[in-house]
């Protein structure tokens, strides 16, 4: 069944069709959410939230590209996550005990085999959202400039500019992490 058929069936209330749609896209959502800064522990909850919201918005879905819709909803879910995360952080620090033995690898260790990859990821997460999101969509989600513009309600030239600036900022950050001192030559 092709995607438009799946969507039509899901809109008509076919849960099996919606289940198939979720299976096709859950990895996209998980990776995108993580790239946006959601912690690994919370990826499952955020992904669930995205698909619940998506279902509620299905009646409004018309001829737009499905993935445009999906990215918009995921983005909003991660923004809400950021807001709640700040508030809940204090509570978590009080109640969560350290479950990790220092000799055991953390979940992030299985994602980043090399320290420089983790550093780059963290530098990217620290970027201002308006630079970070276009960069992520372009580099890691293989989304075209036009689609990025649709997702973020921007013009295409603005998208290109943001990606360019994001690269500049990220490069600066990567250099300052590496040391940044002049060699005096």
């Amino acid at each position: 069944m092709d995607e438009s058929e799946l969507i039509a069936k899901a809109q008509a209330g076919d849960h099996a069709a919606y289940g198939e749609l979720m299976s096709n896209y859950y990895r996209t959502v998980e990776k995108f959410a993580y790239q946006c800064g959601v912690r690994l522990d919370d990826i499952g909850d955020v992904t669930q939230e995205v698909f619940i919201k998506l279902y509620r918005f299905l009646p409004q879905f018309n001829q737009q590209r499905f993935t445009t819709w999906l990215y918009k909803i995921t983005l909003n879910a991660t923004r809400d996550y950021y807001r709640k995360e700040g508030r809940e952080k204090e509570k978590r620090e009080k109640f969560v005990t350290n479950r990790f033995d220092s000799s055991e690898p953390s979940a992030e260790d299985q994602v980043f085999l090399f320290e420089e990859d983790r550093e780059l990821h963290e530098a990217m997460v620290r970027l201002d959202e308006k630079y970070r999101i276009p960069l992520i969509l372009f580099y890691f989600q293989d989304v075209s400039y036009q689609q990025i513009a649709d997702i973020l309600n921007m013009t295409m030239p603005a998208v290109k500019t943001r990606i360019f600036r994001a690269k500049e900022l990220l490069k600066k950050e990567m250099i300052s992490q590496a040391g940044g001192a002049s060699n005096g030559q």
Partner: protein
Amino acid sequence: MDNERFEKRMELLKKSYERVPSTFDPSKVLQKLEAETKPADMPAGKRKKINQQVMVWVVGIASILIISLIAGLYVADQKNTDEEPVTSDEIDQLMEKLKKDYEVEREKRRVLLKLEKQDFDKYDSYDPFWMVTNGSTSSLLQDGDPKGRLMQFYNQGVENLKTPSEMVADLKSNPLTEDKEGSLEFINAYREKVERLTAIYNEILQENNDLLQAYEVDPSLDKAYMIGMSKGAFPERLQNILDTMKEQSIQLQSDVDSYGEEFFTKYYSSKIHEQIVPLLNPDTRAYIDMMTEAPYIVAGELVYPLEESVEMMRGMQHSLTNVEDNSALYQLLETYYVTMFNTILRGTEKSPVFDEQGKVKQEYREAWKNMASGSEATPLRYVMMPIVEEMEESGWTTSETLNRIGYDALKDALVVQRAGQLEMYMYGEQPVFPDEEIKVPDAAFEQKIEGLYSSFKKQYDLAVLEGRSPIDIVALYDLANKKNDTEMMYHLHHENVWKYSESGYEMSLKQYKASWQKALSLLSLSDEISFSGEDVFRNDNLLYGTVNLSRQGNVRYALNVIHDNGIWFIGDVTLQKLPSYEEQPLTEITDDTMKNIVRLYNQVSEDQNGEALLGIEPMSIVALYYYAGFRNDLDTLYKLYYKGPGSDLVGKEEFIKTMKPSWPRFNELFTSMSFKGMEQDKEGNWPGVATLHVNTEQFPDYEKTVELRMIWTEDGWRVKYEPK
């Protein structure tokens, strides 16, 4: 850091993300959807003390305001009126009908909200027909369309009746993501209705306060929450509002002080509220967030952690500077913005700024630096940058600006920004750069650039470049490349390009020369070079622009240029190195390779313009080629062949007739591959060879290696057609 290195790092990071673990279970989502009416989760822990400081709108006045706001949205059907004039009797009849219909609509909402009549009358105290009721029928008759006017009154009245939940339903049918003004109107109207309801609910709570106080709940539980969840525990009037308020995103809360526990209602971040946010214009976000986040300060203390408060302020700043509005709502948001700023700047009783040693505490340093960070001209940066600089110089003990700054400093900066003057205050007058365009080749232009080359070559004195256009600088850079003049190319780059080089050390001329590879001449590949002054943007104290090199109307290369103190420099650019330098080492073909190729294939096969193939590496072209063959996709296969001078490729129709690839799957046929570019041949082409190692275990009849000849084009590498 050079571009190539950066791209490689991003590529490796992308591969890392494939290892993000997954715990997603679609069945859990389906279960939740089926149980959609499940009540909200009990909030853990103690509720924060929220003071019931809600700005209360006078309902009557607000109703009129709402009517005027929504009048533009709900225009009455202008019925095509008869040529004959409308009589007073007809108007009276219509009005009677509309009054009856209006009562039906009223009753509908009263039942929906489960309010008793005297309470509902406070929700809807507006008479949509008051103008006519007060004896203005005669003036109505003089109106060009009296029936239409009556319908307008009726429709406005019905809009005024709609509950917040109904407004959300309307919004879902007509999202306002592109409409800033409409979004703000929606928020104003929505907010006003919520406040009408909370005022009514609070009155009912006050009248039943004794019952609420007497209601017993386990002390470890949240009493307001438990009361909100109760069924049939209270008299009907109170129970009804407890049962229905959540549908309007309002919930019961309580606040404990020295007088006891006080119950009140407040708008909260419900599932309904979450639905609103993506349906409004993103620039108005702070206005809708204010409904759930306010108040931000209680009894002089920040409600939210410092870091989060700063982020909220940034959000407010965005809305305040991007949305034109002079309403009371704007004033409210601005007040919060300024108050939060001053609280974060001065500290609070419970959280002072300075520690016992008289130094700014770490959390405040981070908050202030956050407010001062960024690259654009914003009120926060304007005010905070000098404070942070002075503090850093003094070891975070003192700042003259901080001592002098007044309470309204941020507000003043906001006014300046809304007048479009803040950037000038921060960086001085921005030069105006004219648009430029030159068709190439142009002998006079080339001569000019040769002259510039000779002048600059003498001593690399930057004064020679002052006032030169960015097009001149790019052409000079291109000429230096042609002449293998690495030293000139080095000096033409902005110093930031070297300061932030990959090694972490400032890249020296010697290092640059050692790593330099000659590039193709950009001007030789183009027929036009252009620059748009309008597209120049600020990045802190530098200005960035782009010089485009085009061919046949299509931009083929866009070079970043940086303006610094009157001189244009080359930014961090990656030129197209000579194809003979292109080399990709022996690389294993894995499942990941296949996934990437399948994704690329999908893009290429859908793409009508050939844009998807631009900039693709030669080995990816090879993989795509074999995959298209495996899929028997002759269209895509044809796209991948070289068609330039010297090509033996047949016409597409013949190709499709005769070609029958039926190749094995790429990652089954081959185990690894590499690529090497070669020197330019006699025909002026740039050839290359991809060497693929065959999986001889599965395909013992094949040769151990296959060589695929390729030719470079401006659009990327293509496969040379060599019919067997």
